[in-house]
């Protein structure tokens, strides 16, 4: 064990001399947090709207006012021709265009249905469908209001009961993408330090020939593995502390659940990421190779298939099955559960167990391969 400690001491002496690595370890998490905290924003609270109001009546203006009062829409322009509207939508000046027909008020006052055309820029499907949903909401509210008013005018008492939803949004009451994304950065940062940096560090020794020098010493392979991995575990947890501080103090997202369980499952998670790093180091001859394999072979699939970037429920069934093999998937579930929902071991033990099983297996097999490679 003493030899392992000496080895770790050497690793830190080397960290000290490698400013690039420090930059990577310290700046990357900060940058990631800022990017994902501010830029990766799927929230839609400002939809640009163009109106082609051919009716210019009181009722049509009331209708348009409903949009502006809803808080989601900004009217960028009142246009006078259909062509102008289509041009603006094509130029992305507006997401939604509303065409109000000439007889809007007349039709409604004569108890006829008026048809309003809604044009939606669907090039960003997600944004388009959200905007369309809001538009529909505003429109149906307005039409309900008209019915009630006309009934009241005619002295009809509407006796029919109705439903009003009283919505309570849990876990992320402001429905902010940020609250969903920022906590998961921990998974990404740990992946970066424990897979990419670890594989680079081991391959570096191979490239330099120091690995060979080490093999000729009495140091045993398991001591070398521990000596090489533990510094990156420490580094990983240090960056994790940094990212989580940014999350709590800058973005104001508290950890609702048990920090102990959070740390414990992070540890289970890095068993597999360290194992992957070690495995990559056994198949790469140069640092460049290790970098490529880490990024394309480990990080990209993890990011895309873990639910970090895209919801797993929206993936085709076959790909959903593949995600079960992605350790980060379980960790992301745990992170979001602990931080946003405040749930813990009782609800997340399956994910923790999966991380444990995968971690032990990957790390064990990689160590075995690493050991074999040394001989």
């Amino acid at each position, binding site marked *: 064990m*003493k*030899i392992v400690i*000496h*080895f770790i*001491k*050497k690793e830190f*002496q*080397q960290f000290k*001399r*490698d400013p690039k690595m420090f930059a990577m370890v310290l700046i990357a998490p900060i940058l990631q947090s800022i990017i994902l905290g501010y830029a990766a924003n799927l929230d839609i609270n400002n939809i640009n709207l163009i109106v082609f109001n051919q009716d210019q009546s009181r009722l049509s203006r009331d209708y348009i006012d409903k949009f502006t009062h809803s808080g989601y829409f900004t009217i960028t322009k009142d246009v006078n021709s259909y062509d102008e509207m289509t041009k603006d939508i094509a130029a992305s000046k507006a997401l939604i265009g509303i065409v109000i027909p000439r007889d809007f008020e007349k039709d409604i006052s004569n108890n006829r249905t008026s048809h309003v055309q809604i044009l939606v820029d669907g090039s960003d499907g997600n944004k388009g469908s959200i905007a369309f949903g809001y538009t529909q909401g505003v429109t149906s509210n307005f039409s309900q209001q008209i019915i009630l008013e006309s009934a009241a005018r005619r002295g009809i008492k509407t006796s029919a009961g109705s439903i009003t939803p009283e919505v309570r949004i849990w876990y992320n009451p402001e429905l902010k993408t940020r609250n969903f994304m920022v906590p998961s950065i921990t998974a990404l940062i740990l992946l970066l330090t424990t897979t990419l940096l670890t594989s680079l560090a081991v391959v570096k020794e191979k490239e*330099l*020939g*120091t690995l*060979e*020098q*080490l*093999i*000729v*010493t*009495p*140091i*045993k392979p398991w001591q070398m593995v521990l000596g090489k991995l533990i510094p990156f575990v420490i580094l990983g947890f240090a960056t994790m502390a940094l990212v989580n501080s940014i999350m709590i103090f800058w973005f104001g997202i508290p950890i609702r659940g048990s920090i102990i369980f959070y740390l414990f499952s992070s540890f289970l998670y890095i068993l597999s990421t360290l194992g992957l790093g070690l495995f990559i180091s056994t198949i790469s001859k140069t640092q460049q190779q290790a970098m490529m394999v880490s990024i394309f072979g480990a990080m990209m699939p993890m990011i895309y298939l873990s639910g970090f970037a895209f919801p797993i429920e929206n993936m085709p069934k076959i790909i959903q099955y593949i995600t079960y093999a992605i350790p980060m998937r379980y960790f992301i579930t745990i992170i979001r559960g602990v931080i946003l929902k405040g749930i813990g071991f009782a609800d997340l033990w399956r994910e923790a167990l999966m991380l444990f099983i995968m971690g032990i297996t990957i790390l064990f097999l990689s160590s075995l391969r690493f050991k074999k490679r040394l*001989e």
Partner: protein
Amino acid sequence: MEQIIQIENLEKSYGTIHAVQNISLSINKGEMFGLVGPDGAGKTTTIRILCGLLLKDSGDVKVVDKDISKYRKEIQKSIGYLSQKFSLYGDLTVDENMEFFAEIHNVKDYKERRDELLEFTRLKSFRSRLADKLSGGMKQKLALACSLIHKPQIIFLDEPTTGVDPVSRRDFWKILSGLLKEGMTIFMSTPYLDEAERCNRVALMNAGKIIALDTPQKIKEHMDNFVVEIVCTPVRKAYELIKGITELEVQMFGDRVNVIVKNYEKEIPVVKKLLEKNSVEILDNRIITPSLENVFMHLIKEAS
């Protein structure tokens, strides 16, 4: 004499390449042993097997009286290894490198030993310099110092002076003679025959086999042919003529060729005639004592 390394019928192949073919040899305690041979002869493979860096295919290898297949880690406590390539931590200082290698060898009070070695290798004034910032020769001396920190019984050197400047090379050899005086066993491979001459015993390796094994002196005496040195011009033309037309073995060195002959009186006049006829000017010719180089080139030729 006490033997410290015993190799019997050692074999190693990489796929279809037979790198080491059935070699047997033993090294005496306290001797400087040289493994000589051209590139690809199997020198590095042999050293790597002896250090436990490579697994042998078959044969018996005993180092410090222990079987390498069973007691690899035990053996590695009492050997030092210096690889062909500089393989220390460039981002650690001279002191830190030595400290690290002392610690992983479990050497407790290494400070004194370290100072002694730094003194010995004349690196003391560079002790806080990063290893990457040292010159080639100094790097090699540092690597040697690191491999000596745990006072090994044997030190394996794989072409230690390849790519090292002449001054550092001389320094390096001085250090090695110092070690030898202390009773250390040195096992080295080298492509340089002048270095081989300084070894107590040498083995010539070619294509995975040992084709000669003795003291440099004995190997030279073993040559029962004459080596005739002919200084002539143009030398390349002479070389090609002798090689192409006569059956004799000829080696070219700078401004002269060495012809190996069995019968001086009979064969040399033929050669001279051939050269004169083809307008090669002979400046001098005489029988010389064969150098190690002559013998090795001769043996390699015979072997192939």
